[in-house]
C-alpha cells in the first residue's frame, strides 16, 4: 500500500487528465470513423482538420479579445470555429477531390488524402507561422475546481473537468440519437451498410457522402478547437493526432461510435498514466494497446467480423 499512498494523488491527477484528453481524442476519432463508414476511405488529412480547427479557434478567440468583447464569448467561439472549418473545407474537398477518385483503387484514394495532408500542413505554416500558438482564455475564465480525492483535494481546471467531457458526451449521445432516430441519420447508416442498395432505394448517396464528410471535418475541427485552451499548437500536431485517432478507431473497430468512446477512454487514460509514471512510454502506449487488441480481436473491440466474400 506504500506505493499507492505515495502516488495516490498523482494517480488521481493522471485519471482526470486522461479523461479530458480522451474527450478531445474521441471527437477526432469519431469523425474519422463516420467518414470511413460512408466513404470507405481512411482520411489522412483528418489530422490537419484538427490542427486547422485549433488554429482557427485561437485566431477567433484572440480577435474577440482584441475587439474588447466580453470574454465569455470565447466559449461559443470554439464551436463557431469548428463549424466554420467544417463548412469551408468539407464540401469543396469532398466534391472536388474525393468524389473524383471514388471507386478507384483504395491506395489511390488514401494517397489523395495524403497529398491533401501535405498541402494543408504547409498552408497552416503559411497562415499561422511556425511559432507555438496558445490561447487559454476559456481555461482561465472558468477557473479551477477542487476535486475531492480520498482525504486530499486535487485542484483541476473546470474547463477540463466539465466542458471537455461534457461536450464529448453530448456529441456521443447526440450522434447516436441522430444516426438511429432521425431520417437523415438512418439514411447515413443505410449508405454505410450498403451503398448500392441504398442508391437503388432512391437515396442520393453523393449528397449523403458530402454531408457526412462535412460533419466529420467539423468534428475533427471541434476536437482541435476544444484542445487549444489546454495545449499549445505547433506544426506537426496534425500528423501526431491522425496516427493517434487511427489507433483509437482500429482498437474500437471500424464503424463503431460507442466503441470509439470506450477505446478513446482506454487510450486516453493509458497515455495519461504513462505521462505521469513512465514518460518514455507516452507515445508508445496507444499503439501497444491497439496491437494487443488487434492480436486478440482482429476486428477491434466492438467490430463485427465480416464474413469472407467468396
Amino acid at each position, binding site marked *: 500500500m506504500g506505493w499507492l499512498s505515495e502516488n495516490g494523488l498523482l494517480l488521481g491527477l493522471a485519471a482526470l487528465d486522461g479523461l479530458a484528453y480522451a474527450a478531445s481524442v474521441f471527437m477526432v476519432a469519431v469523425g474519422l470513423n463516420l467518414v470511413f463508414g460512408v466513404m470507405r476511405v*481512411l482520411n*489522412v488529412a483528418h489530422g490537419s482538420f484538427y490542427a486547422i480547427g485549433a488554429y482557427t479557434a485561437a485566431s477567433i478567440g484572440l480577435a474577440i479579445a482584441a475587439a474588447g468583447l466580453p470574454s465569455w464569448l470565447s466559449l461559443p467561439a470554439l464551436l463557431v470555429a469548428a463549424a466554420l472549418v467544417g463548412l469551408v473545407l468539407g464540401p469543396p474537398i469532398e466534391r472536388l*477531390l474525393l468524389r*473524383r*477518385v471514388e471507386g*478507384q*483503387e*483504395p*491506395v*489511390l484514394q*488514401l*494517397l*489523395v488524402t*495524403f*497529398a*491533401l*495532408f*501535405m*498541402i494543408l*500542413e*504547409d*498552408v497552416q*505554416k*503559411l497562415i499561422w507561422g511556425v511559432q507555438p500558438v496558445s490561447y487559454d482564455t476559456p481555461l482561465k475564465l472558468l477557473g479551477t475546481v477542487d476535486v475531492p480525492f480520498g482525504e486530499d483535494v486535487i485542484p483541476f481546471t473546470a474547463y477540463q473537468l466539465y466542458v471537455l467531457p461534457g461536450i464529448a458526451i453530448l456529441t456521443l449521445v447526440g450522434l447516436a440519437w441522430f444516426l438511429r432516430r432521425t431520417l437523415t441519420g438512418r439514411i447515413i447508416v443505410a449508405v454505410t451498410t450498403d451503398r448500392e442498395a441504398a442508391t437503388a432505394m432512391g437515396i442520393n448517396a453523393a449528397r449523403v457522402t458530402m454531408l457526412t464528410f462535412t460533419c466529420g471535418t467539423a468534428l475533427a475541427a471541434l476536437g482541435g478547437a476544444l484542445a487549444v485552451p489546454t495545449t499549445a499548437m505547433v506544426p506537426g500536431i496534425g*500528423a501526431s493526432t491522425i*496516427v493517434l485517432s*487511427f*489507433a483509437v478507431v*482500429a482498437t474500437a473497430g*471500424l464503424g463503431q461510435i460507442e466503441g470509439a468512446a470506450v477505446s478513446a477512454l482506454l487510450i486516453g487514460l493509458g497515455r495519461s498514466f504513462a505521462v505521469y509514471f513512465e*514518460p*518514455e*512510454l*507516452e*507515445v*508508445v502506449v496507444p*499503439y*501497444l494497446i*491497439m*496491437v494487443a487488441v*488487434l*492480436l486478440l480481436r*482482429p476486428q477491434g473491440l466492438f467490430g463485427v467480423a465480416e464474413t*469472407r*466474400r*467468396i
Partner: protein
Amino acid sequence: MSRHIEWLAALLGAALLVLLAWSAPWLRFVLTVALAKGIAVLGLLLLLRAGQVSFGHALFVAFAAYAVAFAAPSVPEALLLLPLAALGSALVGLVVGLFVVRYREIFFGMLNLAISMVFYSLLEKFYSITKGTDGIRLPPVTIAGQALTGATYEWTVFGIALVLALAFGALVRVYLASSMGQALMGIKTRETRLEFMGVSGRRVLLAAYVLSALMGGVGGAIIAMTSRHVTPALAYWTASGELVFIGILGGAGSVVGPFLGAVAYELTRVYAAAAVADAWQLILGAVLLAVILFAPGGLWALLRGRRTA
C-alpha cells in the same frame, strides 16, 4: 517486348543518372538518396502487387539506418555493414510479418503504421541510447578496406546504390514472373481462389513481406552511409507515406517505376525547397494530386504513352 523496353529504360536511366551526378556534383547526394529510396519503394511495389499497402515501411529503412549507425564504430566497413543491416531488417520483417500477414487492406496498413510508430517513439524517447531527435552521427567507414574521403567516397556510395538498384530491379522482375509472384497477384484478385488451389495466401505474402523488408533495409543502409546522420524522422509515418507516394508517382506497373518516381520526387523536393522554402510540401502534394487525377498509372505509364492503372 515489355522486357526489352524495361531493360532499355533501366540502362538509359542509369546512364542519365551518372551524367547528372557528374555534371552537377551537389546532385550526387540527392541522386544517391533517390536510388536508396527507390530500392525501398521497389519492396513496397511487391506488396502493392498483392493489393496491400504498408503505411509503415519506413520502419525497415530506419532500422537498417540505425543498425549501421550503431555498428559502424565497431565494424567500420561499408561492404559488411550494408548486408548486415539489410539482413537485420529482413529479420525484423519476418517477425513483424508473421503477425501482420494475417490482416488485409486497411488493417494491414494500420498495423504496419502502428508498429513503425512504436519504433519511432522508442528511437525518440530513449535518449540515453539513441540520442533522441538529435540523432547519431556516423563515423567514417571504409569501403573494401579503403578509407575514402570527399568526392571519391560519394561516387563510390553512388555506384554501390546504382548497382544494387539494377540488381534488385532484376530480382523483383524475376520474382514477379515466378510462381510466387503470380500467387502474389492472386491475393489481389481473389485470395479465396488461391487457397482453393492449395496455396497459402499468408505464406505468399510473408515471403514478399520479408523480401520487401530486406529492400527497405538496403535503402536505409545506403541512406545512413550517404547522409552520415540518422534521426528518428526516418521512421515517422510521413516517411512511410513518402514511400507509398513515390511508388504511385512512378507507377506500380514496372520495376523502373519506383526509381523514376524516387528521382522525380527528390529533384522536385530539392528545387521546390530552394524556390519556396516554406511550401515544398505544398508543391509535392499538388504534384501527387495531379498524378493521381490525371495519370493514375504514374510516370512510367505516362512515358510509355498509355494508361495502365
